[in-house]
């Protein structure tokens, strides 16, 4: 997918050697720093920190873990924390990673929630939040566009996207039923023998 994915920064044995020496505390601290500084999206910060700075995983592993994170339920940030933590130090590593990455933002939103509840009706705050909410819609749409460019492999995928939106927003089938129904159809469509035909990308 990424150009850099083809040439890992370190040889696998070197990465493993460094990873073996990582303590639970180091994992917690590194993810705490990511959790406190990753404004505007965690994934680029994860790469910079785990691959470039710490060499805990190489680029190939990073891409592999990210693709697993995206296929599973759960946020990319927390799934990545679990996978990287698991690779370094098993269960405790996973817990250290996920707690670290969630703690700063969680404390901040705890305070924001209290402040918003007390002052949310203020005209200035309402005005600013109107702008913020509209921007968030634009932000999600840009995620939709960039994910579509990266993850879709067939033109017919747009039919599955449309079907999902209609099922949730128009037919009000609910997310779980939609996920199972359209998901099964889409996976069957991409069944092994059909995978190569008519790809968008070479």
């Amino acid at each position: 997918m990424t150009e850099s994915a083809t040439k890992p920064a370190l040889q696998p044995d070197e990465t493993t050697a460094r990873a073996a020496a990582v303590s639970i505390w180091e994992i917690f601290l590194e993810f705490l720093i990511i959790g406190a500084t990753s404004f505007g999206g965690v994934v680029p910060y994860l790469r910079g920190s785990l691959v470039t700075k710490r060499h805990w995983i190489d680029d190939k592993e990073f891409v592999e873990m990210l693709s697993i994170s995206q296929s599973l339920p759960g946020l990319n940030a927390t799934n990545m924390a679990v996978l990287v933590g698991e690779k370094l130090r098993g269960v405790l590593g996973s817990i250290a990673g996920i707690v670290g990455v969630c703690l700063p933002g969680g404390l901040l939103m705890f305070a924001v929630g209290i402040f918003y509840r007390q002052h949310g009706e203020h005209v200035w705050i309402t005005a600013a939040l109107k702008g913020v909410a509209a921007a968030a819609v634009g932000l999600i749409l840009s995620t939709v566009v960039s994910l579509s460019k990266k993850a879709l492999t067939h033109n017919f995928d747009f039919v599955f996207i449309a079907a999902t939106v209609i099922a949730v927003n128009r037919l009000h089938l609910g997310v779980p039923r939609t996920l199972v129904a359209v998901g099964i159809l889409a996976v069957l469509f991409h069944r092994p023998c059909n995978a190569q035909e008519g790809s968008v990308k070479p």
Partner: protein
Amino acid sequence: MNQIPALIRVFAYLSILTVGGGMAAFPEMKILTVDVHHWLTFPQLIHLYSVGQMAPGPNMMMIVSIGQWAGGILGAIAVVVAFFGPTAVLAFIVAKAWKKLEKWPWRTSIQQGLAPVSIGLLLAGCFSMAKGAVTGTETAAIAVGVLLILMQYKVNPALLVLASAGVGLLTFIPK
């Protein structure tokens, strides 16, 4: 009235719906937190979600605010554990199995098939949020502006959201 069990139920359920991102669970989150349990109003949910985009870390930490409102500190902790616990356990278990299935041809099929569905869920979440957030020409202009800037330039999205707060201040304060 103790809301903690209800908070745990709701957010553990929402947890497993977040395929492809937190926004996938948004339509269901709106129904459960606003319409069923009345922990907050729809505009409040939209505001908290949007403000949460400026916070560092995983982009759904706004759930902490909902937990805090409904159940105090314990509510906040319960919500975080319920929302991140189930998917963390799943990731932990599945990741190992997933690596072993590298040669299994259906593995690619599942990844390729889930991609459009998760994008569709993201879009559905976006539309249900837009119903409350994009209410006129000005808000539509902000949303489209942010989309175009992000597609064209490498800007930190959190900065754009912050700038939009400024635009909101200039545009929406009643004279």
